[in-house]
C-alpha cells in the first residue's frame, strides 16, 4: 500500500509532464480526423447538457496508428472520422469494440452503421457535380457517367484522385460497373480535365466562377459553407456562379458517404463515450449538424436546415452499402495511379 502511495506521488510529478491520466473525472477523450470548427460547437452542447468534458486531439493523419501503438493504455475513447476508409481501417486493425445501444439503433438506419456496432455513421454527404450557371444548361449533365462525354473536354476541375472523397466515388463506380469499365471512365474524366487535379472542393467552385472550368466534383455541404460565408464574402459569389447537380436521379441515385465514429477497444471512459455517441445521434445534435455544417442527418425525421431545403430538397440516394464501397477503395486507389490521374 505504501508502495502504491509512493507511485502515486511519482505519478503526480510525472503528471507535470503533461501526461494524461487514462481515466479522470467526468470526461471523454476523442481522437478526431474531423476539423475543430465542425465539431467543437456540438461538443460544447454535449458538455453543457451532461457535464462531461470532451477532450480532443485533432490530426489529419496517423491517429489510427497512435491508437494502435498506445494499446491497452490508450486514453482515447472515441475516434471521429470524416470518411468510411478510416473506420474500416480501425476495424481491420481491431482497434474498436462493439456498442449495443437501443438509442443508436433507433437513430441510425442500418445501412449507416456496422452490423456488430463497431462503427456508426453520424452524418451523410452527397458527392455532387457543380455546374456553371452561365456555361452549362440545366439538364445538360445528369449522371457521373456523362463526365466522359467529349463535349466536356478541357472543362472539368477536380481535387486529387487520391483524396478519400474521390476514391469513394471511384469505388462506387467499380461496385456498379466493374473495374474495366470504371478504368475507362476514369481515363475519360482525366482526358476532360481543364487542369491537373489540385486544391480542395471549394477551390474547384472558385475555378468555375473564374472561368477556368465549367464542371467540378464536390461535396454537398461545401455549397452551404460557401453561400453563408460571412468571413469571406467572395465565397458567396463562387457559390452563386454554380448550379448543384444531384447525379443519377433517374437510376441508382447520388453517391453518398458518411462521417462517423467508433468506440475504441480499450476506452477508459466507455460509458461517457457511449453517452456522447448517443448524443451525437440524437435529435438536437443531428439538427445542429444539418444547421451548422449543412450535412445530412442520418437520423430519419430530423428537420433539415432551411438552406438545405432551399438548394437541395429531397433527392434519391444511392443505397450501396458502405462496407461494399470500402472494399473497393484499394482497387480505386491503384486505378488512380494506373491512369496517372493526378499527373
Amino acid at each position, binding site marked *: 500500500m505504501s508502495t502504491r502511495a509512493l507511485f502515486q506521488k511519482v505519478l503526480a510529478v510525472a503528471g507535470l509532464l*503533461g*501526461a494524461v491520466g487514462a481515466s479522470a473525472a467526468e470526461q471523454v477523450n476523442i481522437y478526431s480526423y474531423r476539423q475543430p470548427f465542425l465539431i467543437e460547437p456540438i461538443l460544447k452542447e454535449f458538455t453543457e447538457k451532461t457535464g462531461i468534458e470532451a477532450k480532443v486531439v*485533432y490530426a*489529419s493523419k496517423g491517429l489510427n496508428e497512435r491508437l494502435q*501503438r*498506445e494499446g*491497452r493504455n490508450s486514453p482515447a475513447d472515441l475516434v471521429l472520422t470524416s470518411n468510411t476508409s478510416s473506420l474500416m481501417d480501425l476495424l481491420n486493425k481491431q482497434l474498436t469494440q462493439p456498442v449495443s445501444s437501443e438509442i443508436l439503433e433507433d437513430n441510425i438506419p442500418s445501412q449507416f452503421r456496422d452490423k456488430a456496432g463497431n462503427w456508426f455513421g453520424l452524418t451523410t454527404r452527397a458527392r455532387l457535380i457543380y455546374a456553371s450557371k452561365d456555361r452549362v444548361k440545366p439538364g445538360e449533365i445528369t449522371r457521373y457517367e456523362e463526365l466522359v462525354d467529349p463535349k466536356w473536354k478541357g472543362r472539368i476541375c477536380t481535387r486529387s484522385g487520391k483524396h478519400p472523397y474521390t476514391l469513394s466515388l471511384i469505388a462506387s463506380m467499380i461496385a456498379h460497373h466493374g473495374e474495366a469499365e470504371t478504368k475507362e471512365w476514369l481515363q475519360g474524366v482525366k482526358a476532360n480535365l481543364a487542369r491537373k487535379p489540385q*486544391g480542395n472542393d471549394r477551390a474547384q467552385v*472558385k475555378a468555375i466562377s473564374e472561368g477556368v472550368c465549367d464542371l467540378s466534383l464536390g461535396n454537398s455541404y461545401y455549397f452551404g459553407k460557401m453561400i453563408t460565408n460571412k468571413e469571406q464574402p467572395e465565397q458567396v459569389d463562387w457559390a452563386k456562379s454554380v448550379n448543384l447537380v444531384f447525379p443519377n436521379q433517374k437510376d441508382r441515385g447520388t453517391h453518398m458517404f458518411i462521417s462517423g465514429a467508433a468506440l475504441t477497444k480499450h476506452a477508459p471512459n466507455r460509458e461517457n463515450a457511449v453517452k456522447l455517441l448517443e448524443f451525437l445521434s440524437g435529435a438536437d445534435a443531428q439538427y445542429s449538424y444539418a444547421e451548422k455544417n449543412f450535412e445530412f442527418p442520418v437520423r430519419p425525421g430530423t428537420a433539415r436546415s432551411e438552406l438545405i431545403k432551399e438548394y437541395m430538397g429531397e433527392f434519391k440516394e444511392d443505397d450501396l452499402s458502405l462496407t461494399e464501397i470500402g472494399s473497393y477503395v484499394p482497387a480505386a486507389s491503384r486505378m488512380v495511379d494506373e491512369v496517372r490521374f493526378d499527373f
Partner: protein
Amino acid sequence: MLNRANLSASRWLLLVATISLLVALPVLSIFWLAFFPEENIWPHLVDTVLFHYVSSTLILAGGVGLVTLITGVGSAWLVSMCQFPGRRLFEWGLLLPFAVPAYVIAYVYTDLLEYAGPVQKSLRAWFGWQTARDYWFPEIRSMGGAIAMLSLVLFPYVYMLARAAFIEQCGSIRAASRSLGCTPWQSFLRVSLPMARPAIAVGLSLVLMETLNDFGTVDFFAVRTLSVGIYDTWLSHGNLGGAAQIACSTLIFVVLLITLERMGRARQKHFVQSPNSQRERYILRGWRSGVALLFCGLLLVAGFIIPLLVLGSYAFSNFSSYWSEDFIQIASNSLLLSIAAALVSVLLGLLLAYGKRLQPKRSVRVLVGFSKLGYAMPGAVLAIGVLIPLAAFDNAVDGFLREHFDISIGLLLSGSIFAIIFAYTVRFLAVSTGAIESSLEKVTPSMDRAARSLGRNSWQTLWAVHLPLVRTGLLTGGLVVFVDCMKELPATLLLRPFGFDTLATYVYQFASDEMLERSALGALLIVLVGLIPVILLSRSIGWRRGEERTAVADSEAPALS
C-alpha cells in the same frame, strides 16, 4: 596516464553511442516497419507513378538547391565582406524569412497572385480582360511556384552558415591572395568560397532535406513529390510498411549525397589561427552598391516584408474577433516547446560534435551521422517512429507495475509534451550538430593539445577553449532549431496531448481550409515570436565581435550551460 586517456576515450565513445542510438530509435522503428509491408507496393509504383514522383522530387530539390545556393552565398558574401548602404539592416534582416513557415508563404502568395487575387484583378481592370482565357499569367500553383516559395524561406540556412564561415575566415589569407594578384572575384572564388565550403554544404544539405520533407507546400501546389507518394502509400493504399520503405529509400539516397560531398572535401583541412582578426570590407560604390542593395532587398521584401504585410493586414482587419485568451496559452506552448528542444539539441549536438573531435574514428563518425537521420524523414512518418518506442516503453513499464504492484499508471511519455520535445530533438539534431561541427572543424587541434599539455582534461578544454571559440556555431544551431520547432507541424499534430495547440497547429487548422484570414494572426505570431531570438542572436553572431565579446559571453553562458 595512457590508461586514463583510454578510459576517457571510451567514456566519450559510450556517450556518443548512447545519444546517437536514443535519437536514432524513431528512425530505426521506421526501418523496422519497412520490413513488414502490408503488401509489396514497389511493382505497382514502378509500373505507374514512381517515375513521376522521383522526377518531380529531383526537379524540385535541384531548383531549390540552386536558387538557395546563389541567393544564400551571394547575400552572405555581400553582408559579411562588403560595405554598402543598408548592410547592417540586411545582416539580421536576411534571417527573417526563415521565421515564415513554407506553407504560410505558399498561402500568402497564392492569395496575392491567383486569378482572384489583387495582382491579376488589377491587370484585368487595366487591360479590359474578362476571363482567365483572355490572357496568360504564370500559375503560382506549379513546380516553379513551389521552387520559389521554398527557396524564399529556406535560403537563410545557407546564408546563416555561409556568413558564419566568412566571418570566421582569417582576413590575412584573403589579404595574401589579393597581394598575390587576385581580383576580388578571384579571391572570392578561389579562396573564400572553397574555405567556406563545409559550412555551405551543411546549409545546403539542410535545405535539401527540408525540401524533401516538405508536404504542406507541394500538396497545396499539386506538385507530387516523393513525400506525397509516401503519405499516399500509407493513407490511400493503407500500406504503412510500404510508406516506410519509400521513406527509408529516400533516406539512403540523402545519406549517399552527403557522403559524396564529404568525400569531395576529405583532404581539405584548414584552421583559423585568429578568427577575430580585423576584416577589411570591400567598399561598394555606384551601380555596384545599387546591385547589392537590390539583391538583398528583393530577398528581404519577397521573403519577409510582403508576407508580413499580408498577414498583418488580415490579422488586424478583424483583430478583436480573432484574438482570444487562448492565444497567449498557445503562443507560450510553442515558445516553451521550442526553447526546450533548442536547448536539448544544442547540448546533445555539442557532445556529439566534440566526441567526434576527440575520437575521430570511423565508428564515431558513423554514429554521429546516424543521429542526424531524423531530419530526412517526413514529419508524420517520423512521428509514427517516435510513437513506437515511446508507447512500447510506456506499456512495458505499465505492464511491469501491473504485474508486480497491481497498479496501472497508463502512458507516461506517449501523448505528453515529452513526446513532442523528443520528436523535435530527433528531427532537428542534425541542424544543431551540423552548425557546431562546422564551427569546431575550424579550431586548430594545436589548441586542444596546448590545453591538454597544460593539464586540462577533455571537459575543461571544452569549457575553457572550445566553447568560446564555437559560440557562433552554438548560437546558430540553437537559433535554427528554435525557429524550426516553432514551425513544425506534422509531428506536433499527431503527438500532442489532448486539447493542446501550438501556433503551427492553430494556423494549419484554418489555413488548410483556405481560411487565410483566420489563420493570419497565428502565422503572424509564429513570425514575431521567431523574430525576437533571431534578432537578439544574430546581433551577437559576429557583429562587432571584438567589442561585444565579453558582454555577450557573460549573458549567454548561463543559457547554454
